[in-house]
């Protein structure tokens, strides 16, 4: 799984929202993009509240 910085997560989130606003996301991709956005937000929120070692467990969970 990936290890992303706040900046990368934030920029990707911004991109998803922009794409949606510009009608560049089709109905089929809606589910996929929303899931990705939700993951990014949750990831940042968890990262804010953990130190480096703890965050690895978050990834392990996701991998399962």
């Amino acid at each position, binding site marked *: 799984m990936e290890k992303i910085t706040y900046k990368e997560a934030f920029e990707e989130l911004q991109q998803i929202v922009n794409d949606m606003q510009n009608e560049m996301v089709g109905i089929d991709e809606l589910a996929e993009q929303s899931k990705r*956005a939700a993951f990014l937000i949750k990831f940042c929120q968890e990262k*804010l509240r953990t130190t480096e070692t703890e965050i690895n467990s978050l990834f392990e969970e996701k991998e399962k």
Partner: protein
Amino acid sequence: MFKNLWQFSKRNAEPQLLLEEFKPRKLQSLSLFELNEFMRRITALNFSEPVWVKAEIAQYNVARGNHYLGLVEKKEDSITAEAEAIIWGNRFFQLRATLEVPVESLLQEGLEVLLKVQPEFHERYGFKLIIQEIDTAYTIGQLALARQKIIKELRSKNLLYKNGSISLPLVIQDIAVLSTKTAAGYQDFMEHLNHNRLGYRFRTTLFPMAMQGDNTVEEALQNLKRIRRSVKSFDCVVIIRGGGAKLSLKAFDDLSLSESVANFPIPVIVGIGHERDESVLDMVAHTSLKTPTAVADFCIAHNFNFENELAYFGRQMVQMVNTKLSGAKLALKGYNATLKHLSQTIAKSEEKQIDSIKTQFPLLVKRRLESNHKDLTHLADKVSLLDLEHTLGRGYSITTDEKGKVLKSPEEVDSKATLITRLKAGTIESRITKK
């Protein structure tokens, strides 16, 4: 004797006059003590009251509760006058209580001071200036001047806003802290950070140093150097010091320290607990806050702001997805209705076609039959005609009366009637002779 001693106050008084009492007897000498005692008295008499004197502090140290200053006067970097001064312990306490600024901030090496002194000559310790008062305004003025000079230099090198122009990272989590572990300020700072209500976690690395005294600047510079070597592992530097107007801020007006901070590659946030004017360090730092706890709160608020932006994105997403979905649903409904309508229309029009065919069908059939019938009749006629010719060819004849009615029995005609016989090749008219 006293009359002569008064003359000493005049600059061009001849020293000899004063020694009238002590006219050296040819075979007698003075003891050192006697000489010094004489000096003491001269001094005491000429300075029945203290005088104000301007000087620069070259040295300053405290011993046995008393404060010792080495005062100098300089002309273009070379010393032209020098004297030792003392603030006796109890006098110092008085000053500390009455002065509106911390005494320590005024008594620093390199500073110019205006002091009210009582000159004294002690037989053993020689000439000393006993300090009675310090003119704070003068020194503050000098300090302010010195600070202005430093600020001017920083400004000319475009360093005043350099650190401030670095953007803070989205999230502050890795902090390099310059402070003293035992200081209250540091502990308050850590307390606030580690027990914030939002649950944010931080990774702080302490670079311990004295936050007051002569070594502050040097230790700060060393620490900043060390941080620079691993600057990528930190989001920002925090310089904090517990409050207390009593503590000297001199280190934080230092030019080299301010330059180092101004040129630092990551944001430097300071909270050095000053009560009065900001120091030069406050001006060059990225962010200057009043206290260490304010610095902690700043970091927490910064991260909270980030989280809010995330939440905003989240809300936008939900909104957009919902809009799109309901839009799609609506479109589907529309298509459904249209389809229904279309199929109904098609069905109706087909029905109509069928109906019209239905109604027209019998007529068509009838007409068809009729025309067929006509054809058939024609054909039948033709056939029957052909048949007749063939029969006549075989020798048979057709007998009709005068009217042309074909006779099939003798009863059908009168005995007087004329008969017409049709043969294949012509007709014969004949009369009946016998029936």
